[in-house]
């Protein structure tokens, strides 16, 4: 849908986004992760066109800019406006025909479960309500690209679940979404593509499916401490690690699991469990932001 080619953005001497190459694929939900100051909001503002790249370019893939729905990180709204009139104003900006404005606003309010607050002054809304309102305005008019900057920030678990449900529905409808979040379980749940930023650079890029099948490993647990066989096991392969009563075999070392089991049984240890595991998003994220090597597709 949109391609970023060698995009760099500086704020005086600070490089906020550094030589990013990224394609936002149509119909996917792209999760942008990264620690504070990684350049996520700057990236969103570049895509939204609020900022101009100092270097590189952002181009639509078919030559036509997508229509945008943008939910900024800060929940700021016009003062002294009620929820429904605000959404009606956004609906007018989204080119929704006047005859359909009320209906579409009601739909949007229902989608984020905010019908009860339609006549409420925005200034009187709770943070959770404002977060829902911010999402509701972004959804209006079914824009071809949704940019959601931390859509669940400050929400209670129920609210987070609601927002995730909405994004899952959007994903099922083939909506293109770019979202940032610090809630890794949410990203795992709703995103189909993943980008991890650190210091303005892309440190990890993968589909979510591929990311979650990275680094397969087998954990063998014994009922007793394995320090007596630790040296033997670790000498078998560099990707075998022993910790307390566990042996972890990664990647190619997995093929040696039978041999490891026989060593353990031969040494008189009872094996109480063998588990096949994959890297979690938390592990991938931790390694990426610490600038460890994580293989991607």
């Amino acid at each position, binding site marked *: 849908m949109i391609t970023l080619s060698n995009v760099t953005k500086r704020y005086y001497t600070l490089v906020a986004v550094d030589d990013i190459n990224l394609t936002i694929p149509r119909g996917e939900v792209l999760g942008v992760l990264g620690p504070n100051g990684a350049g996520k909001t700057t990236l969103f503002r570049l895509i*939204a066109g*609020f900022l*101009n790249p100092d270097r590189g370019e952002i181009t639509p893939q078919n030559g036509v800019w997508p229509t*945008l729905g943008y*939910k900024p990180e800060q929940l*700021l709204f*016009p*003062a002294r406006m009620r929820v429904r009139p605000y959404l009606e104003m*956004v609906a007018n*900006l989204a080119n929704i025909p006047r005859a359909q404005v009320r209906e579409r606003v009601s739909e949007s309010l229902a989608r984020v479960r905010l019908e009860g607050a339609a006549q409420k002054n925005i200034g009187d809304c709770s943070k959770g309500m404002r977060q829902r309102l911010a999402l509701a305005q972004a959804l209006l008019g079914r824009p071809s690209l949704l940019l959601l900057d931390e859509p669940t920030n400050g929400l209670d678990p129920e609210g987070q679940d609601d927002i995730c449900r909405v994004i899952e529905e959007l994903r099922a409808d083939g909506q293109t979404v770019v979202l940032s979040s610090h809630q890794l379980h949410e990203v795992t749940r709703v995103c189909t593509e993943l980008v991890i930023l650190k210091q303005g650079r892309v440190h990890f890029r993968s589909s979510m499916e591929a990311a979650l099948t990275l680094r397969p490993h087998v954990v063998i647990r014994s009922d007793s401490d394995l320090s007596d066989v630790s040296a033997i096991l670790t000498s078998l392969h560099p990707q075998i690690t022993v910790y307390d009563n566990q042996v972890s075999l990664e990647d190619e070392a997995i093929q040696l699991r039978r041999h490891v089991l026989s060593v353990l049984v031969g040494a008189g240890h009872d094996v109480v469990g063998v588990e096949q595991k994959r890297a979690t998003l938390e592990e991938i994220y931790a390694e990426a932001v610490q600038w460890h090597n994580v293989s991607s597709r």
Partner: protein
Amino acid sequence: MAQRIFTLTIYLFRSLLYSLPGLLYILATLVLWRVLFDPTQGTPELSYYTLVIGLFGAGVTFLVTLSVAGRAYRAANYPLLARLPSRVEHLTAVLGASLLFAVLLQLLLALLALFRGPSLATVQALEIPPLWLAVDILAAVLALHASDLVTTGWSRVFLYSLLALFLFGRSLEGGPTSWAAQRAMAAAGWFLGHNLLGFSDLFMGIGRWLSSAGNSVVDQLFGLPFWPFEAMTDAIRSGAFTSAQALAPAILLLYAAVLFILAADLFASKDLFLTE
């Protein structure tokens, strides 16, 4: 596009109307009416009525535009801006909302001033609004350039310095060429007094050349930007427009159009760091 601009215009207009500055503008208009068109005093002349309310319109439009532009530059507007295919729509709405608010204030003062004010024939009443509107539009566009919304880098400094330069040149007695000739002659005298004959001759030559140039193109150039204002003021005082003077409002609109295109270009290409 028209729907989006109209929606934003009404939003910005309401945002100012229901704010403290909006209330203050209305109160200030009432106070100025009491001061400038005191109903207990004699009936003002038509030229006074037209010029004073025109001047009020320009001033209030400038201030109102600054207020509206400040509101349009708030971070709450990010989601609204994201919806626009062109940022110029936002700028147009700022201009529209500012003019709407300011013109309503001007109309309020104009109507209040009619109480025990000059009697206006229909033709005269129809002549006045285009004059006021042309000045208001120019004031609004100039205010846009002074606002954070439009300014990029040193753009407002350059624009207002240029304006100040023209004003300074125009205010000089005998015009800028004559002023420069006098300064060159004075410098020549100073160098002569310090026995720096080479420099003295040089500045003397420059002074003579500038004096001989007389009412040069430079002098005319400095006066040209202000000609529409002078023409309109003269016509209002005399009570009738010559064919040349009748062009003055159109020239002001031309200035405004050029400055608005410049403002649109600056706004469309700047990085937006809306205030939170």
